[in-house]
């Protein structure tokens, strides 16, 4: 991490300014900060590891050349996630109806892993596999907004930016999606 001022890491806006002046190293720090959320944002759209990597890499390159349009005061993360999402969408479009990887939970914890948090325990009680299966049953427009908002923990504004919709659309889609998920989970509970 860059320590250029009194030992403090530089803010995104400072790194973006340096990058705009041609400092590729500064830009590399921005890429490092956001590569994970960028890759996962792309993966949730493409459901292909290779396509998500290509999309994220291409998006960061395009974002570098577009830094001239990055406005002072704007947050870098949602700005770049919009570019990432567009690249991922284009790759998914090219891929056509090719089979996509499903969402799944990670394997069991190892003996050295920390004990699950109370929230995690709650998920286990509520059958996290059922929840994931219910999420996968949602229409894509609803599934993506839930995945961005809750699985990736993007803010509403970032979710809106990544999907290219108004914040009001994020709210209405979330409300609809949560309603469907609740119905599905309640049905599972009564069946089980």
């Amino acid at each position: 991490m860059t320590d250029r001022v009194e030992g403090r890491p530089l803010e995104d806006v400072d790194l973006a300014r340096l990058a705009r002046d041609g400092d590729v190293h500064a830009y590399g720090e921005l890429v490092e900060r956001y590569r994970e959320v960028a890759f996962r944002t792309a993966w949730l759209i493409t459901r292909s590891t290779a396509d998500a990597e290509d999309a994220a890499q291409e998006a960061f390159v395009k974002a570098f050349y577009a830094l001239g349009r990055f406005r002072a005061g704007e947050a870098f993360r949602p700005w770049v996630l919009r570019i990432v999402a567009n690249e991922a969408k284009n790759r998914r479009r090219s891929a056509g109806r090719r089979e996509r990887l499903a969402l799944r939970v990670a394997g069991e914890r190892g003996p050295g892993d920390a004990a699950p948090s109370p929230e995690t325990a709650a998920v286990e009680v509520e059958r996290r596999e059922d929840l994931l299966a219910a999420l996968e049953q949602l229409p894509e427009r609803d599934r993506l907004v839930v995945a961005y908002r809750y699985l990736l923990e993007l803010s509403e504004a970032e979710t809106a930016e990544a999907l290219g919709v108004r914040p009001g659309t994020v709210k209405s889609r979330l409300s609809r999606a949560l309603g469907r998920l609740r119905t599905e989970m309640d049905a599972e509970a009564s069946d089980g």
Partner: protein
Amino acid sequence: MSEERLVAALAALGPEIAYPTTPALVPAVTARLSAPEARRPVAPGRARWTRRRMLVLVAVGVLAALAIAAAARLAIGAFEVREQPASTPSPSQSPVQPGELGEPVPPEDAAEAAGFEPALPEGPPPDEVYVVDSPFGDPGLLYVWMPSETYPQIPGSEWGMVLMAFQGDAETVIKYVERFEDVEGTSVEGRSAYWVDVPHVVEIETEAGFETFAVRGNVLVWEGEDGISYRMETALGLVEALELASSATR
């Protein structure tokens, strides 16, 4: 399950998702940006061939510029034009099928369903309205009119006029033309617009994936007020189409 508990469960599920390992993007990105042929970012005010400038050029009809920027993309709101060889529709390709794009809604409920109210052209009211809701972008509305004296039948289609309206700029509808020169720049009430009067292909993103249709009518795309963009497919000529579009802005 309460909504509060559901949200907590989803938030707790996030770290449990088995994403593929995030690749080390920094070396690849910085290597590409450090390559001898790499450019530097274009500073504000010196941007060349930005989308906005492209649209201005289109609006004033500087068609030669389009050939220069053949690799670029043209976009107005939710409607984007891409140049792609072999974009002439095949004889078997169907025209826009509203029922494959969205759910029909009563006209009086359309604005509420989409969350915005498009301005419709003066004249007979639409016969059917559909809500188009894709994974990306805000919901859109698709209006269709049966053929009539006012709206002659679109070649190869059962409709007299098809009007799509979207809010926002997430590109939901992609038009593929053989050559950018097939796209004629014009304006509606001073706002950017383009006109395509050659057969081409349109691809629309829906819940079911990407639906591709043949377009054998004439198409006017324009930017309305409040971030709403419109696409009108008609058998009418440019002058009549522009009058209709202008009537929608009044």
